[in-house]
């Protein structure tokens, strides 16, 4: 039971982070929030009995995607007008 409430909390956290990622003006903060959404999603996959997908999402969503976004921001500009 407590696990289900924890999952509800994680889903709320995921949505709140997604809204933050869309609305903030600082693109770097936005990218880090989007990476956090992926990390929370990998915990959700673990609850849904998908350990393979959870491993992939943790390595790719939180690691590689965030890195390529940060490289692109470094080459362009950081703040949204």
């Amino acid at each position, binding site marked *: 039971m407590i696990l289900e409430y924890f999952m509800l909390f994680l889903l709320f956290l995921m949505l709140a982070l997604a809204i933050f990622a*869309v609305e903030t003006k600082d693109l770097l903060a936005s990218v880090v929030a989007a990476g956090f959404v992926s990390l929370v999603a990998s915990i959700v996959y673990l609850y849904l009995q998908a350990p393979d997908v959870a491993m992939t999402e943790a390595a790719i969503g939180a690691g590689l995607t965030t890195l390529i976004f940060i490289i692109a921001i470094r080459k362009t500009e950081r703040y949204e*007008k």
Partner: protein
Amino acid sequence: MAFFVASILLILIGLYAVLVKRNIMKIVIGLSLMDTGVNVLIISLGFIRGRTAPIVNVKDLLVNTSSKVVDPLPQALVLTAIVIGVAVTAVALSIVMLMYSKKNTLEIDEYKELKW
């Protein structure tokens, strides 16, 4: 049920960013959020309450497997979709970098050569 609602809301948040935001980087972020939402939706379609992961490494699971594990097919599909997602995001970001090198701005309204 909460998983369906949350993943649909995640897809809608991503689509909102694609439709409303003027910054190209925000649009790409919205696309990657939509990607995550679709993946969570597909995985939660295959979930069955009270079952274990589809890895048969104890003797107990060998007989009558389909009454003891969750559906492995959505997991196999999402596994490849995630890896494609990162490659597609990388291509999108390199297009963004190319566009920025031409006009020195990330605002989508400045790129109106294709408008008529």
